[in-house]
């Protein structure tokens, strides 16, 4: 009897518990289902608003830097096609591409750079021009693709600092006289967003579509200085700054930060050869190949001070680069000073010579453009 009573009791318990459990499982499964669908992956910083502040907020405290920042090339990396400078450089111009034997006509209308050529059936337009003009400026043709995402074509025609239009660097081998190839290099939606990513402070993207009216062009403080929001919160609360300082990074980390846009050696693909002329375009890649960079830890510039070489030795990213060679050779001489038991002096030139002529010469990239070779060495032609 007792056993039967127990069985009956447990049967009643299960009879109640089962529907309750079923209901709980139902609610849980519905919750899991909706939460999994809504979980978003981490975004690239340039596409996120969660960690950054406005430029204006930085200016409140750092006006010594921001007041003159507009002179820096980083402040002019991305401009609209209808700015006076771009109109002057592109409007009503025709470029003849000798290699492909095509004519490309450029005209600025209604805020866009309209591009027509006999090799492509319909006109296309570029709203944004990439580049500060220190070296060159290149239009990026954009449109919404079949998935509603922003795709682009890096235009085959660029404006160069010598005032002329020419074939965009890297496209000299583009021989297409017709079709999309005659316009330039097509970019997928993801690549187009990344183009904007290196030339902007904030790139808003919704389902792969660039929200161009909310774009923050040019390199602002938050693009390189991470977590400005946390920094401002700390400062407002009277806490110590936790802002990352470039001087506290190792030289490799520091160059890597610049290399996110200016390229890194290990991400180029393939072996880096000394005779590769394209390396000159990527200063951060060349610098990391230099003996000066590789051996810097072996040089003491003070009793307790190890030599340090990274991009910021010669380049202040908040200002235009000095064109006075003596400003740069002064950096060389901080380490290369045999008299004080530092790195060796040059055996062939005096200390007041221009080191750059032999060790960091300007190398032609195409007929309009030269880059300083940041692979510090004696190039075969100058030996």
């Amino acid at each position, binding site marked *: 009897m007792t056993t039967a009573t127990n069985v009956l009791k447990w049967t009643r318990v299960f009879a109640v518990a089962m529907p309750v459990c079923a209901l709980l*499982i139902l609610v849980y499964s*519905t919750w899991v289902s909706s939460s999994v*669908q809504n979980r978003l992956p981490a975004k690239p910083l340039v596409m996120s608003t969660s960690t950054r502040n406005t430029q204006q907020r930085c200016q409140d405290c750092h006006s010594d830097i921001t007041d003159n920042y507009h002179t820096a090339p980083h402040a002019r990396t991305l401009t609209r096609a209808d700015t006076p400078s771009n109109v002057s450089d592109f409007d009503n111009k025709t470029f003849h591409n000798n290699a492909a034997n095509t004519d490309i006509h450029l005209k600025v209308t209604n805020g866009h750079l309209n591009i027509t050529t006999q090799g*492509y059936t319909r006109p296309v337009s570029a709203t944004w021009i990439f580049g500060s003009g220190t070296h060159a400026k290149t239009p990026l043709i954009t449109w919404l693709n079949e998935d509603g995402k922003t795709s682009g074509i890096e235009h085959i025609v660029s404006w160069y600092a010598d005032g002329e239009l020419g074939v965009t660097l890297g496209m000299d081998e583009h021989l297409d006289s017709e079709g999309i190839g005659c316009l330039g290099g097509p970019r997928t939606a*993801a690549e187009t967003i990344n183009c904007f990513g290196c030339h902007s402070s904030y790139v808003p993207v919704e389902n792969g579509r660039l929200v161009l009216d909310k774009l923050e062009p040019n390199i602002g403080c938050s693009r390189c200085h991470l977590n400005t929001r946390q920094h401002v919160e700390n400062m407002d609360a009277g806490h110590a700054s936790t802002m990352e300082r470039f001087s506290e990074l190792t030289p490799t980390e520091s160059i890597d930060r610049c*290399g996110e846009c200016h390229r890194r050696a*290990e991400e180029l693909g393939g072996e880096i050869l000394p005779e590769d002329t394209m390396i000159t375009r990527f200063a951060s890649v060349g610098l990391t190949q230099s003996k000066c960079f590789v051996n810097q830890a072996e040089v003491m510039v003070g009793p307790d001070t190890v030599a340090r070489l990274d991009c910021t030795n010669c380049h202040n990213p908040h200002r235009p680069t000095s064109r006075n060679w003596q400003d740069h050779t002064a950096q060389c001489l901080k380490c290369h000073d045999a008299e004080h038991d530092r790195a060796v002096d040059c055996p062939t030139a005096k200390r007041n010579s221009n080191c750059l002529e032999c060790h960091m010469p300007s190398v032609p990239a195409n007929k309009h453009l030269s880059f300083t070779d940041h692979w510090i060495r004696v190039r075969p032609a100058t030996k």
Partner: protein
Amino acid sequence: MHYVETPWTGLLFTGAWRSSEWCFIIMWCFATVSRIAVRQNQGRSLSKPPLRQLTGWLLPLLAVVLCRRNIPVCSLWLFLQTISNAKFATNLTPSGQARKHSVWHGGLAASLLLLMLCDATGQGAKPFHRLGWGIAPEIDPRLLDLEPKQGSDEFVSAWSADRKSTGMVAWLYPSIKLIDHPQRALLGGRTNLHDGLIADFLGAHRARYRRDDGTWGGWVNTLANWKATIVFVPVEMEQLNRSLQKTTWRPLDLDSPTVPFVSTEDLRYAQVILDTMQQERFVETGPWAPSIDVYDGRGWRFDIVEALGGPMAPSPAILQSQKFRSMNSPLAALRALLPLRHGRQHQSLRHEFQKCQIELANQEWTTFGNTTRFRQQVVHELNTTENVYSELTNATSTSVKNAETVEMQTAVNLYIAGDLESAIAALPNNDDEATYAIAMIQLELGESTKAKANFQRLIDSTQNQNLNIASKYWGDQID
């Protein structure tokens, strides 16, 4: 867009119900009514069912609420239950009522069986699924053909994007060491890393970059740290396949349900990469006219529905078409569908055909500057503006209306119905747009030589700039 390998497919709040979900609910209701009728006949109280009966009643419903994939087995459960109830009810009732119950239950059981059989043929279901024999093409490892290159003492390291690929690789290639795969990432608390790598491929984030959660992204470094030399991606992850096509990673297999990608910097695979690229060119513009048998990993096919006079299962062809589309080869995708595009076509096949046409139309719009009239009319006739450039859509309606001819319309209808030879015959020879249409249909049929001749005719004679560009483009693709 967050990637979820297998989206949770519960019954509620996870998408619209299809025919199978409705059928199951109807079956469950019928089974409930049947159960109540039996208990009434037994003279038992309805308010206190025994635990086992309660379990038997609720369990199928609970299983389907948790996951829609349980529908087939739970449907079978309900069917057998109904049969059992019918037999039991007949035994209990007086003979006069027995016949009535027997007819009622028998009819119900027969209806349910018919419903299940109809669902099993896959004719009403979208996406297509059919009860069959053997291994489904989506998971058939016999189609994966890879020769892992390694030294005598080393493993080949690989990363797999999903569990299906993991299973196939582990089954076929013990010499491949899988660095990470979704299940291991889940167990190891590394789903963010796994998802992040996929997001990096999709976002073309080659170089290291900082994310807003403080982590570093960039696929080059991640794969280099793992020393992964092969990446396996299932065909269903179309966007990931497309993204990888734009990198230095190349596919080594064109018909496997999971695609092995290797880096062009790995010289051990250089010859295989070249061979595969030649195959890609061949399936796109070479004299390739596949039959349905190429899709089966066994080398032979058996489909009971087809044997009973039903249509062929389109899944293998659709899968192959998806693969070719992800390689930016929509013409090869159309060729893959062609063996099934005769007679009545399953809606999944029509949907895939639509996608191919949209891609071709968009490809023409982007590559040449304008879409050709034939392709415009096909897209227009398929009555879809989804995923078509808005400018193309606007242009299509106007130009199709203005330029429509009876011959072109007839040809388009025949083409969509799958009768390509008749479509060619319906097109006139004296119209440039028609000549281009003929050439493209011939190319789709695998008649590359004839197509090239027509393209050359257009290059030599047409004044239409768009057709001239298009003809040169396709003419250059054909060897």
